[in-house]
């Protein structure tokens, strides 16, 4: 029998480590169980774009809140976190998308987020490697770029400074009322359990409606100055909405190393982690449509990762329905780097009965998610 913990967290991804820090800072005695490397799951695969999004009011509230938390964290992040406030440019491909640019700007400005419309000329000046003739875009200067695995490692170390314990090399295999069982046979007595196992979370809480959504990414050799801002096509909204089909969208990110990270693809039902030539090809053709010069850059590596998707594209933060003393912090889809920090606050607020900074109801796992499954 080992020592007892107030809380045991399964998963040391960015979400699990952020939760560990938040709970440990509040004085709880926390253990984090991780079978592999800290930040080695989706957290190592993601793009690390910290971005305010407006798919829904709830998504906006959580991303906006989280972004403010990221700005505070940026001050203490070591250089290895590679945090840089690059800003996002949402690139419009046609006049219809320029309407969306205007709508989005009005939406952001009304909620206190700076957003600036770029016309064709300003866009070409900001990103000379975009194809000529694009009508414009929306520049959101507050968004940033981080290197997620090192941020997760940093959050874990900070949590350890506050007394949290990392239990590496083991996974949680079973959960009872007063303790969890680990894959090496140990029982860890605990008060409450947090499932932060990302796309693996349904293995621990069956029936929570989280599905794997595969993504491909590619990184080039160093080409400083090729891309200046995080670039995302506005058509991304159309493809990100599609819950059934395979889709690709142009997404290019400048890394502090001078490398360019190119994304992205979305697939349901693909279980294997292998790089699929046809998806990679579609994704890159899309990227080259927007930035023809990418074709001549050298790729050093390609990889895939799994997002934990929910039907309404909002995460699950709060009590696991019908399971006492058990909480969920999962289902972050393609925004979990951004929303990890807000998630940790909202989870701790619920556990510690603190007043939250934003309402947590939209993210409660007990909400009805059916009505949104159409999108």
């Amino acid at each position, binding site marked *: 029998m080992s020592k007892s913990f107030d809380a045991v967290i399964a998963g040391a991804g960015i979400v699990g480590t952020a939760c560990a820090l938040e709970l440990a800072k509040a004085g709880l005695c926390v253990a984090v169980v991780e079978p*592999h*490397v*800290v*930040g*080695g799951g989706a957290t*190592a695969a993601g793009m690390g774009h910290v971005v305010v999004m407006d798919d829904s009011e709830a998504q906006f509230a959580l991303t906006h809140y989280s972004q403010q938390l990221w700005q505070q964290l940026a001050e203490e992040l070591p250089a*290895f976190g590679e945090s840089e406030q690059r800003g996002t440019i949402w690139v419009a491909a046609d006049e219809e998308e320029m309407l969306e640019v205007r709508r989005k700007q009005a939406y952001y400005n009304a909620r206190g987020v700076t957003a600036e419309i770029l016309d064709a000329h300003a866009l070409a000046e900001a990103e000379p490697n975009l194809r000529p003739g694009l009508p414009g875009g929306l520049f959101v200067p507050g968004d940033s770029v981080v290197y997620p*695995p*090192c941020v997760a*490692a940093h959050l874990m170390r900070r949590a350890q400074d506050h007394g949290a314990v990392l239990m*590496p090399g083991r996974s949680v295999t079973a959960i009872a009322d007063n303790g969890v069982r680990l894959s090496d046979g140990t029982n860890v007595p605990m008060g409450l359990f947090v499932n932060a196992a990302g796309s693996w979370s349904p293995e621990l809480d069956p029936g929570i409606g989280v599905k794997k959504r595969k993504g491909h990414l*590619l990184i*080039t*050799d160093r080409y400083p100055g090729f891309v200046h801002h995080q670039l995302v096509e506005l058509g991304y909204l159309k493809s990100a909405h599609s819950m059934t089909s395979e889709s690709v969208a142009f997404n290019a990110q400048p890394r502090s190393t001078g490398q360019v990270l*190119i994304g992205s693809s979305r697939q349901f039902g693909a279980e294997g982690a*292998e*790089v699929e*030539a*046809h998806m*990679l*090809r579609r994704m*890159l*053709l899309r*990227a*080259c449509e927007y930035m023809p010069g*990418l*074709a*001549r*850059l*050298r*790729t*050093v*590596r*390609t*990889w895939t990762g799994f997002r934990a998707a929910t039907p309404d594209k909002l995460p699950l933060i709060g009590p696991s329905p019908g399971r006492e003393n058990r909480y969920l912090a999962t289902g972050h889809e393609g925004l979990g780097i951004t929303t990890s920090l807000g998630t940790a606050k909202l989870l701790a607020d619920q556990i510690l009965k603190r007043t939250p900074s934003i309402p947590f109801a939209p993210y409660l796992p007990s909400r009805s998610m059916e009505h949104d499954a159409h999108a």
Partner: protein
Amino acid sequence: MTEAHVSCDVLVVGGGPAGLTAAQVACESGAKTILLDDNPAFGGQIWRGAKHFRFDNKVLDLISDQTAAQLGTTDEPARLRKMPGWRVVAAPRPGVATAESLSETNSIHFQKLILATGARERFLPFPGWTLPNVMGAGGLQAMVKSGLPIAGKRVVIAGTGPLLLAVAEYLKQCRADVRLIAEQASGSSLFRFGLSLTSHPAKLFQAAMLKARLLTVPYLTDCWVTRAEGKDTLERVCLRQESKSWQLECDYLATGFHLIPNTELAELMGCAIENGCVKVDEDQQTSVPNVYCAGEPTGIGGVEKSVVEGRIAGLAAAGLAQEARKYHAVWRHCARFAGRLNETFRLREELKALSTDETFVCRCEDVTLAQLRECSTWRAAKLHRRCGMGPCQGRICGPAVEFLFGWKPESVRPPVFPARVESLTQADVEEKSS
């Protein structure tokens, strides 16, 4: 963006002794063959630029001197298409390889594939190994072949394996002042190895050793470099032999710690790997049907093994596996030699203790030994320290890290070499005639 496409019966990747032999045999047996190599000239590590370096044994008559000359220069049979300067970077689906040259990309459709991708040198870190003029033994040899003036320069050659002797001999011929060959293997194991060299394939080694001696280069066993020193560039090396240590002034230090099979392309194609080598059956076929492998990737064993394996693979890929059987006895011979070779030049434990906390292990990303010590797996080292994330993708630091920490690099993904984005967008177009 190019959208070219060619096809063949047999595609041979790599134009060293194994690939040259395989390609020749396959096309002589009637197969429409493509031979490609990522260097501008064929010949592989040993026969490239052969006008300076000739090695003169007849390799059991399996390959004549002309073969290399023929294949490397003019007069190719119509069935053989040579593509020097092309590198296979990806394999988007079975039967298709993506190759790139400096400016173009091509899809190559094939029935059978022979991987003859050779080996590369293993590097181990030690203090000062990143100083200018400290280089790989093969690397220095290649630079001299392409014009680096070496006459009169003081060179120390250190590390392990027969390659050191070959390089010493070559540099001597180029009138370098080779001051010492420091071989880390023990004198007694080398002596046993020498005694076992009664068989033919080993003659190369014997000859080289003899020549090195005749050329009066001091050859010390149980001896290794502990550090390289110099202000802006190399000035001297510190050496150790048993309890003795001393310094030697020099202009170049050429190091190499035996060879590492290039298995990445085979891994990308899904071929099974065993003990770091591509697993093959007696026809040189890998675990993936229609994919063959010959030469160093199946186990480091020198030119003779490469040539005989190239011959077997070429015949088998052309549908003449029966005929290839008659070479099995020779192959077994070479394989036994290879086994003894790798046993003899095994790395000693002391080499693990050379690096200090500040020594860079990963040169692409400046990762030090101390930083690696904080990690527990290759993946952690990679994710948290960027080890192996640079342009070499772990080709150089991977084997060193494996020796120092026992961590194995993870799976291979496309591209196997840094490749242009456009090469990964090649259309899988319908057969055009090539």
